[in-house]
């Protein structure tokens, strides 16, 4: 079972925050196939948000095939979704750590690094110079 944390003024709609937190929990193996997500009632009682916000997040995840909503039973992590292998995650995290250290040494601050990463993640991967 996971706990959601909703930030009201992050600029990210609450339903996207929930969907992101579920996706991340699946990727990191915190949620495994067959695990039940908290019910709408449990979520709203814990974080005080509108019930439709939770429903919208769960529907979105269902559409992506990550969860399986079973009427009257609950919402479950779909069979067949796989977490990133933890060895891979650890190794990637270490190499990213080295990269961050190198970028800092080159004088980049956090904002520069985020911009560079976002730009590299673009499909073309083209670097635009500001």
């Amino acid at each position, binding site marked *: 079972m996971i706990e959601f944390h909703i930030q*009201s*003024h992050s*600029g990210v709609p*609450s339903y996207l925050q929930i969907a992101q937190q579920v996706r991340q929990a699946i990727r990191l193996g915190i949620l495994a196939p067959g695990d039940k997500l908290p019910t*709408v*009632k449990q979520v709203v009682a814990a*974080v*005080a948000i*509108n*019930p439709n916000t939770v429903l919208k997040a769960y529907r979105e995840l269902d559409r992506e095939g990550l969860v399986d909503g079973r009427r009257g039973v609950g919402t479950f992590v779909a069979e067949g979704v796989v977490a990133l292998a933890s060895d891979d995650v650890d190794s990637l995290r270490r190499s990213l750590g080295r990269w961050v250290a190198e970028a800092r040494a080159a004088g980049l601050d956090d904002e520069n690094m985020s911009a560079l990463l976002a730009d590299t993640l673009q499909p073309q991967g083209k670097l635009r110079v500001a």
Partner: protein
Amino acid sequence: MSALRTEGLGKRYGGSAWALRDCSIEIPEGSVTALLGPNGAGKSTLLEMAVGLLEPSAGTIEVLGHSPWEEAEEMLPRIGFVAQDHPLHARFSLGEMIEYGQRLNPSFDVRLAERRLGRIGAAPEHKVGKLSGGQQSQLALTLALAKRPELLLLDEPVAALDPRARREFLATTVEAVAETGMTVVLSSHIVADLERICDHIVILSGSRQMLAGPIEEILARHRLLTGPRSDARTVSRVHQVIRESHTPRQTTLLVRADGHVYDSCWTPREVDLEEIVLAYLGYGELEDRCDEEAYA
């Protein structure tokens, strides 16, 4: 069917000025609506007409398809109402409050009331007057919820609460919505309190209705346009300009956009709900704001 529907609704007390006029809103069943506006905007008047405590002076109001004033006897058990000062009997114990609620309401759910009061962390023999502000508001909410209402009206429920009690109060409210599918209308003069839990808003100001509708749609339709200093009239032919402000070189407009056609001199940005609400309430309407250039 809508939970609450008004058409040209108005109220004046005696021969005095209108406390509310020309109010036409529709609140769907199962929604959570924030009723926003400064003090004296007409929020309590609207809620009191919805619960059948006040007779409309003009127009119509329907709750679940019925007139709350003319069919008060039938409607009252279906509506939960927590007034601003949530009148409780200070010298009653919690147990006596539950008994009192049970005698006044045929459908009162005693087990639900006891279960919820257990969570407040006070024993049945505890006197109401000894409860904290947060506990008192939870008690008032509990008594209203135990009626199992189809429409719950809360007048300024969280204004006097500290942040933790506020969050607990709102959580209890939405939990009941998730459980029963009831409709909730809560009034407040601060949008930040309610934004998380609401899906609809109604804004009142100076006894008039300024805006009403689903929050998602309202966010999608409003944009903040910034551009070189210019006359707002060029934009207002296409979009409704809610607020304009100018510096010697720049003009900023908050518009209700009908479609997404902007002249290329404007940079459109999304706006959050708080900014939209403030614009409709007339804040930030500053002509010719001085900027550093004026002092140079």
